[in-house]
């Protein structure tokens, strides 16, 4: 399957935005820094809720209440994360194609997104701390941990 995608990656790198990111010595690092700040916002929004689902942290609040409070920050963080992520990708798409960490990240990310909004997000109403909440919280933490760590690992190969 991957080989068939190669022309697409090559095309991405040749786009106007891809060349622009590559040609400036400042663009890539600065976009990366914004990407990292957005990671913190997403991390905070995810961890506050997941810790609570595991039975830790802000135990005096309901799980659903916390999830509602973090939602705008989570969505906002993801918008910034995805836009800066696309720019970084366009700047070095061919390198990414040959990068295992990139594939781990890009395949885990949709799973994490679907899990967060379509699975976890739908089971929050009236959810109390218990086996179900603990499973959901751990799965969420593991998925996002893989996305974040694999993301950092793209830079090492």
């Amino acid at each position, binding site marked *: 399957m991957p080989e068939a995608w190669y022309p697409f990656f090559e095309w991405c790198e040749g786009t106007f935005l891809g060349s622009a990111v590559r040609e400036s*010595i400042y663009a890539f*690092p600065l976009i990366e820094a914004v990407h*990292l700040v957005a990671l913190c916002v997403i*991390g905070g929004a995810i961890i506050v809720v997941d810790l609570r689902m595991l039975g830790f942290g802000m135990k005096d609040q309901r799980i659903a209440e916390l999830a509602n*409070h973090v939602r705008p920050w989570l969505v906002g963080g993801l918008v910034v994360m995805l836009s800066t992520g696309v720019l970084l990708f366009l700047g070095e798409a061919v390198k990414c194609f040959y990068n295992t960490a990139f594939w781990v990240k890009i395949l885990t990310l949709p799973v994490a997104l679907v899990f967060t909004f379509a699975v976890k997000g739908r089971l929050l109403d009236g959810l109390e701390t218990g086996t179900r909440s603990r499973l959901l919280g751990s799965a969420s933490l593991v998925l996002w941990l893989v996305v974040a760590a694999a993301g950092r690992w793209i830079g090492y190969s």
Partner: protein
Amino acid sequence: MIAGILEWVGTTKWSVMLLESYYVWPLLESTHVVTLAFFVGTALMMDLRLVGIAFPGVPVTAFTGRLLPWTRFAFALMVATGLLLFYSSPLRYYNNIFFRLKIVLLLAAGLNIWLFHSRIHLEVEEWENDLRPPRAARIAGLVSIIVWTGVVFSGRLVAYNWFECEIQPQPGWVNFLAGCDAVGEEAMLEP
């Protein structure tokens, strides 16, 4: 003198092993980044509550009581991994202008935290449920957001140091702020 000590530290066995390791260094750095998202992330959530733009109806003490131990735990891991990363290449970081900026911002963040907990937070019971906390608390939250964002930015740019001492000529103020002279002198002493 500091440069001399750090140069020696960089030649110790464990420092060299760390810098040359194929997996340990990247593992340390990814742990640093993951704990950063944990620490700065949870701290930002608290700051947003202090500023009064998030978590309406959640008392501030839910953050400073229930959540803070976790924030501190992540901070401890972040500092530990950060120190080890510094230990792998001390002189290079010492002469890195972004690293120096990061340390200054970390000190500013520490001062802000100390001011918040030693003053404003002492009377937290009086305002913990306020949607809009008192001015001093809102300022502490805003300062925290700005300073930690700065720490993340400068931390990321440490790896892209455009002002490396070896890349000369640099403007005088850059060499001054990065302490490049010491390196320059030492480099000249070598045959």
